[in-house]
């Protein structure tokens, strides 16, 4: 599964994209796995209320299931316009 990071999430984790092999059932489970990986992940994911997530390029929430997902992206609240 591809995991993408944008804006300050990308900067804190230090890379824009990585491929992750996981059995995580939900986005929240994936976040737990990533947090356990390294300190920079723990820091980036310390406050989920400051983060947004998209699964297969659709906005969703942290309870969303990951079955069949090819791409998960984490980023701060958007500031377009």
């Amino acid at each position, binding site marked *: 599964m591809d995991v993408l990071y*944008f804006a300050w999430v990308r900067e804190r984790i230090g890379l824009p994209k990585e491929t992750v092999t996981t059995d995580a059932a939900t986005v929240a489970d994936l976040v737990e796995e990533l947090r356990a990986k390294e300190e920079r992940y723990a820091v980036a994911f310390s406050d989920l209320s400051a983060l947004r997530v998209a699964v297969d*390029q659709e*906005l969703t929430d942290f309870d969303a299931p990951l079955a069949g997902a090819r791409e998960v992206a984490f980023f701060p609240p*958007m500031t*377009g316009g």
Partner: protein
Amino acid sequence: MRVVVQEAPFDFGAEAEAFASGRHDMGAVVTFTGVVRDFGGGGLDAMEIEHYPGMTQKALEKIASEAVERWSLGDALVIHRYGRMEPGEKIMMVATAAPHRKDAFEAAEYLMDYLKSRAPFWKKEHSASGETDWVAAKDEDEDALTRW
């Protein structure tokens, strides 16, 4: 309906003119343009906009389609840039065409409210002193969505 995501500048006047021209059935055309602001005397060197290439186009198309359907628009246009821009440069524009002005205005405000908080763009300010700051999302922008 047309949705464009690009790094290059766009020609606001030409886009506005083309959008508004030759409409015999739509009496009202509204445009909105966002411009990079320099807060207080040369403090901002540049605005940098990051986006999520795989998602941006379809997120904008979804937002625009919803506006077209909800207000029975004759047409809608969204252009949004990414990359580095200087103060005074136009970041984006939307345009709406409807038979009556109320619908054209409401649809344009809807597009803007959703673009602000639901399209995958992130702004970073580069100050003249060399500092950089990610622009924080505003509560009032999130709250603006509740009216729709």
